[in-house]
């Protein structure tokens, strides 16, 4: 078992809207070890992105409201930190890359300017010397761009975001993330906005960098293929609840939660003849008034009265936990 780096404990998050309180995250528990790569999987709207943004305190606080829970990073609760303390963490200890690199870069400034500003804003760097001036920072920026395999970094650094392709822009964001040599990298749907061929390249870069620097990585995605490619462990979320948490091998070979099984069944296999695509019937629950227990209840074939109470996590070996009353049953199904 690796030493623990990040632990999200019993996180409850609400959104105050005009129509009422949306209970977005319900008792989320996630732990990430040093150097571990974890994937958070789920469909759009399940709260995985918000969970990640909460780590860095990037969720705007009205209208969002954290009702309870802790986020422990290196044993300090991030939720209780002041803004100044958080600034020490953001970018340097924990860095994030985002889904759409086009909108996440300022179109009016060169990527060089933006990268240099990030470098200069980093409070500490562990493996490289902290640059004192803009020109030193610029040299470092070029080196970072080389590391993310951006072709011709000396020239590209003076280009504007719209002059770069999608893949290149994402590499710039990755370079920004690396600049502070973070211990934890959070990648929020890093390849969703990119072409399939570029996806593979970006994933490879992330994997190589992770190995080289020993960072922990959280990958947020709805694509199980990405998880299989990059992660040691996968956490499945549904409607703001964590439903299954297991090693990659276990998730694919032995999925225990009905939702996870539904997800895996829904992946079409080329070569296999199927009459109909498997779907999980039903839709997301209304978060204004969610069911009291398991939120997957309405769509689950095994559900009954007991599911009105939120199932405790059941453990199957060291690496596998499931939130379902009927996981025993399904594991042998």
């Amino acid at each position, binding site marked *: 078992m690796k030493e623990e780096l990040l632990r999200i404990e019993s996180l409850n998050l609400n959104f105050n809207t005009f129509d009422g309180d949306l209970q977005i995250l319900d008792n989320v528990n996630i732990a990430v070890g040093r150097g571990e790569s974890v994937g958070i999987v789920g469909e759009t709207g399940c709260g995985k992105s918000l969970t990640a943004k909460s780590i860095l305190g990037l969720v705007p606080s009205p209208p969002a409201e954290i009702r309870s829970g802790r986020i422990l990073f290196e044993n300090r609760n991030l939720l209780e930190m002041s803004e100044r303390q958080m600034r020490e963490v*953001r970018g340097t200890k924990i860095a994030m890359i*985002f889904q759409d690199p086009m909108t996440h*870069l300022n179109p*009016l400034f060169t990527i060089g300017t933006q990268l240099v*500003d990030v470098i200069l804003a*980093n409070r500490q760097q562990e493996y490289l010397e902290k640059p004192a001036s803009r020109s030193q920072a610029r040299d470092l920026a070029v080196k970072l761009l080389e590391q993310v395999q951006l072709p011709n970094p000396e020239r590209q650094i003076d280009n*504007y975001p719209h002059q770069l392709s999608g893949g290149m822009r994402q590499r710039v964001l990755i370079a920004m993330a690396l600049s502070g040599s973070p211990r934890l990298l959070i990648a929020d749907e890093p390849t969703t906005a990119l072409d399939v061929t570029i996806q593979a390249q970006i994933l490879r870069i992330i994997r190589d960098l992770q190995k080289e620097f020993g960072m922990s990585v959280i990958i947020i995605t709805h694509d199980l293929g990405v998880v299989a490619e990059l992660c040691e462990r996968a956490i499945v979320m549904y409607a703001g609840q964590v439903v299954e948490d297991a090693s990659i091998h276990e998730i694919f070979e032995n999925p225990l939660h009905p939702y996870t099984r539904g997800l895996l069944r829904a992946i079409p296999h080329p070569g296999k003849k199927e009459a109909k695509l498997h779907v999980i019937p039903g839709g997301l629950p209304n978060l204004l008034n969610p069911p009291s227990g398991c939120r997957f209840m309405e769509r689950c074939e095994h559900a009954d009265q007991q599911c009105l109470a939120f199932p405790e996590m059941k453990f199957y070996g060291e690496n596998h936990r499931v939130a379902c009353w009927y996981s025993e049953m399904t594991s042998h199904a």
Partner: protein
Amino acid sequence: MIKFLIKRSLLTLLMLFGLLTITFFISRISPGDPAALAAGPDASAKMIEIIRKEYGLDRPIIEQYLIYVKKVLQGDWGKSLHSTHEVLIDLVVYFPATFELVLVSMSLAIVLGVPMGITAAIFQNRFIDHFIRIISVSGVAIPMFCLGLLLQYFVALQLNLFPLGGQLKMMTDPPEPVTHLILLDSLIEGNLEVFIEALHHISLPALSLSFPALASIIRVNRSEMLETLKQDYIVTARAYSISLFRTVAIYALRNAMLPTLAIIGLRFGWMLGGTVLIESVFDWPGIGLYAVDSVINSDFEPIIGTTIVLGFMFMITNLIIDLVYSYLDPRVRDQI
């Protein structure tokens, strides 16, 4: 960039011809005989005929147009019946005062308006935001001439804090004309006394003239700042602990300034029109006052001349704004 400059300059030139076409058209739509108009109300029938021949008013309309354009380009803008000078000479004499007033007013509007807009955006929905918004909403609604009259009455007359009108006191000698802008010339001459007096005199007119533009700039800047601060790239800046100052004043401001620039351009046009009103209220010796006096005296050529000058000034300003815009927004540069 150079290509862009050339292209836009050519376009401006074309627009100038369009402007001349419109002024020509306007001068021909007046009811009655254009020759009689040009000759003035006291001219005899013979005078009118001489004028008609001289101005080519008996030729077909296309020829008249070409004669007109040629004359304008050669500097013959007609004669003012009232001042008996050449219109172009009159305009050259009166233009600097208007230019100075508009320059000071626009600078005031931008220098005050942009920071106020930013402040209102940062402190959204707090007291300062509401206060600033009231100013900005009222500012567009108050008629400029009313504001001028009000300031004249309360601040100048009652409180005696500012002069009632004019550029300088009656007895004061203007400084050596280098740029013909009194404020600048007095500084160049090192004459601090005259500078302060000129500043004193320009304050109320500039404040009145700038107020609607100030209000507009505050509004658009505030709303654009609010929009910009919601953008994803600002989240990125936050995620990497970039300082608040840099995020707002350097990053967000540039994004917000783009639409603000467009509004500044629009408001400049209204301001040029407004000089007529403000010069009228404060007895400011500019071309606005010249135009109004001309209209009252049924003196037609000066009105056309003023229109050409102010129209051209507006076109040049729009050209400059387009250039600044393309400097700020690299995406536009690549499109050209």
